[in-house]
């Protein structure tokens, strides 16, 4: 498959990348969304600015209660990272469910959130976790970052530099549950849940949904229903049934809107139960 003609520039620093970016140029990170699109000529950038060699965008560290993940960190690095598994296992789980080993070894967290495929996994769990997307210009809460179908808050030439995730503290558990598209293995529906328990009851919770709607969203009605509940099967089912309310369900070959809404509630039940048991 032959993409259209393009220029290739390799940036060695963030400043250089920013100066080369914008306009008809596109950044190249892991290439696992961009290159397939270019081969089908769905994407025809005039210049590819390769940011994959920029050292500043790599690595995972923990600063107090915040886990910092460089934009170029691959999915497999997130999945196997001790820091992430200790501080926020649900994120490592989600990363481990992306695609196949080749995809996980090449694809990056920055590319994934910047691309904002509606069926991507990271958006759902990052919204649930209350993550922050740090860019060359600003910091944006994940729930405000994903704005539409393949659309984000990113401005022209802006680069995602880091994703910051709060570590789940005592009494808090998080989990991600995914219904795989049998063909592509993307999420037909993916639900991330974070549950904070106090005694037997749910003190607070956050639920993020991907795959179901044109962009990831917070299921606030379900969060409200769950908060204050005893986290019993009935309470979880009742809250889970509201998860689809937060978004306009997509309808496609892999699932009709009705089935998707149903899967939202099944995946939410599973994620909430798991999160509660981890809390």
């Amino acid at each position: 498959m032959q993409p259209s003609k393009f220029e290739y520039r390799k940036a060695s620093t963030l400043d250089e990348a920013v100066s080369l970016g914008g306009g008809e140029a596109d950044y190249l990170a892991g290439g696992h969304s961009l290159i397939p699109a270019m081969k089908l000529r769905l994407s025809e950038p005039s210049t590819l600015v390769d940011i994959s060699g920029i050292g500043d965008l790599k690595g995972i560290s923990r600063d107090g209660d915040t886990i910092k993940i460089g934009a170029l960190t691959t999915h497999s690095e997130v999945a196997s990272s001790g820091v992430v598994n200790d501080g926020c296992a649900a994120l490592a789980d989600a990363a481990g469910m992306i695609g196949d080993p080749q995809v996980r070894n090449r694809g990056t967290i920055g590319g994934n959130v910047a691309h904002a495929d509606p069926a991507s996994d990271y958006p759902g769990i990052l919204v649930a976790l209350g993550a922050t997307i740090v860019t060359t210009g600003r910091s944006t809460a994940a729930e405000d970052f994903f704005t539409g179908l393949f659309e984000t808050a990113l401005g022209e030439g802006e680069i995602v530099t880091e994703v910051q995730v709060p570590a789940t503290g005592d009494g808090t558990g998080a989990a991600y549950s995914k219904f795989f598209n049998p063909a592509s293995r993307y999420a037909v529906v993916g639900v991330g849940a974070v549950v904070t328990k106090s005694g037997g009851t749910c003190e607070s919770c956050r639920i993020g949904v991907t795959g179901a709607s044109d962009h990831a969203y917070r299921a606030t009605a379900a969060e409200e229903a769950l908060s204050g509940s005893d986290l019993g099967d009935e309470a979880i089912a009742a809250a889970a049934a509201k998860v689809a309310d937060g978004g306009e369900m997509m309808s496609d070959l892999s699932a009709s809107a009705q089935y998707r809404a149903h899967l939202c509630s099944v995946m939410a039940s599973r994620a909430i139960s798991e999160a509660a048991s981890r809390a």
Partner: protein
Amino acid sequence: MGNYIGKNEKRVEDPRFIQGKGRYVANLSLPDMAYVAILRSPHAHAKINSINTDAAKAMDGVIDVFVGQDLIDGGVGQMPVIWQLPENKVPVRWPLTPDKVRHVGDSVAAVVAEDAYIARDALDLIKVDYEILPATTGAEATTGDGKPLVHDEIENNISYTWGLGDKDACDKAFEEADHVIEVDIENQRLIPNAMEPRACAAQWTASTEEMTVWTTSQNPHIIRFGLSAVTLPEIPEHKLRVISPDVGGGFGSKIFHYPEEIILPWVAKRVNRPVKWVATRSESFMTDSQGRDHVQHCKMAVTKDGTITGLHVELYADMGAYLSSIAPLIPTVICITLFSGLYKIPGIWGHTTGTLTNTVPVDAYRGAGRPEASFLLERLVDMAAKELGMDPIEFRRKNFIPKDEFPYQTPVAFLYDSGDYHAMMDKAEENAGYAEMRKNQEDARKEGRLVGIGVCGAVEASGYGPAATVGALGFYGGMWEHGAIRVHPTGRVTAFTGSHSHGQGHETTFAQIIADKLGIDVADVDVVHGDTDLVTQGMGTYGSRSAAVGGEALVNAATEIRNKLVELAAHLLEASVDDIVYDDENGKVYVKGVEDKAKTFGELAFAAYSGHSLPEGMDPGLEEAAYYNPGNFTFPCSAHIVQVEVDKDTGETTIQRYVAIEDCGNVINPMIVEGQILGGIVQGIGQALFEHGIYDESGQLVTGSMLDYTMPRADNLPMIESDRTETPSPSNSLGVKGVGEMGTISSTPAVVNAVVDALTDYDVTHIDMPLTSEKIWNIINSNGG
């Protein structure tokens, strides 16, 4: 018993494949090579008012651009259909369509350029003025009144009708039946998706007027014949060499003669440069022949004691927009002839209507007609057992053809060669621990879990096929095979076969056969295939025919080598031919009773070539060629038992256990046989649960990429518990039966039977494939339980 047949020799082809050193057409690089890209129709049905190639031709790096009329004016022939039925209507098809496009992906123009990128860019500069026409889809729906005609001259989009069986006996069975089981089945469209996309290259040598064509074909000799006799008559057969080197899977889709095989050599001669084309995956989806796509109206007559007495099937088969090479065969001759399955059924009638739609042509795909037959039969059998309240294994056993009735003449033409269906099913039952399985199912049901058990038994006709029979049924050629053995003066052997390996491992198994027949080391045998200049003739590989037909041709050649060696040894050892023993365990030839009066295979080979002392009348040299025309087909069979669990919440099906027994007669290499069985089973599971080539009403292929077309994957499967019974075939000297397709033929109904069993409480008797989670969830959701 020899030293190699029956042993797990490691595949000699694997080191090069797993190191990425295979020699595929796409790897071919020739000096001064140019690249071809083909403009494909984005519309399912449209009239071509005009094509303007000026801008494309003017582009830097473009060598030339050709349209359909250029090829027609340049002497190419129409695409042939080489299996035809009486009175079938064959639509006109050119390699590049000149007037009308009839499916998304139909070929419109060819660009030749300095590199593949320029060729692709130039496609965007070709301006085609399309007048879009309404499209028609659906195997049966397309015959309706007022439907657009795919070809103006073919009324009601019906290309042919064909029937087989005893109508009267069938009618009588239904009149007298206690139970009539009825079901309408949609056996969905599949897209073969061989791992290696199709590719073609061609080189014209003007000085000698010779053309070489490289193509990803399962049968290069047939392609050579088709080109020189029909589609590219400017190149006579003796000046044409067709090479199919390593081919990365075919599953039937690489049997057929494709437009690119004509376009590339035609273009190579015009531009006087070697040219190459490699399909993109998108092109594979919209130009490789596809599979299945039937609508079947079926009923079965059963008496109250559980005896099957009749089967009646009215079948519509979607052929797509044109008839591909052997397409009319698939839903007719090769399908209805298997309606008897493993059973004694006195009254069978099957009738097929082959129809045209604005979709990619449909032709043979792994199993080819036989899975469509076994699916409807094994679904009906299961439904009948359920209606009679009988265990599905018991019901099958009651109707099996007993082993002492072989050879068994079915009412639908075939004479089954051998089989022991009871022993095979017994072994399946035992390996599965069937009684225990059913008990566990009961327990699971009590817990509210949806566990199902599916059974299937099937037979197929493989080893295609006796030349006179296939000729009488519509094939233009014979289905014999050619094999030749060249013994070198040092005793090393090169064998040549007209079979073609594209995953089957012939380089290993055929060497095992020859080593045993000649009594030599398997490492001393090299097998050559896939090149019409090296291998004199061939019919290629499909219809599970390579061992049973290609293997036998090599046996014949080996026998002639042996005969010559015995004569030579008798001469050299000064004994009578009758006293010579050919010791094929130890690779030597000796005088009976005097074992040290012997010559080794190598010594004899050298003697044959030195020619210093040969028996009177014997010519020097040691090479023999042979043909083998089978006397009958071979009839492998299988019994599968599957356990599934359906997730009540999501509708997802998990296969928990898969127990398979196959009987493919004697086995040359158990490991390779098991590989074929496992691959076949997985492909059949793909159809049952996942795969579906979907066209919308406008004829757009909705599942045109791997994002939407679901292939089965390793994590969809349990470890398959595969085992065998061995009932040798009396049809050939090796006693072998085909095994390439058996897994596919049985696994599809086995899995569907299991899922329907799991959903017993939801008032469902049949579910059309694929059994997607949404479809199952809808049943659970709406039928309440």
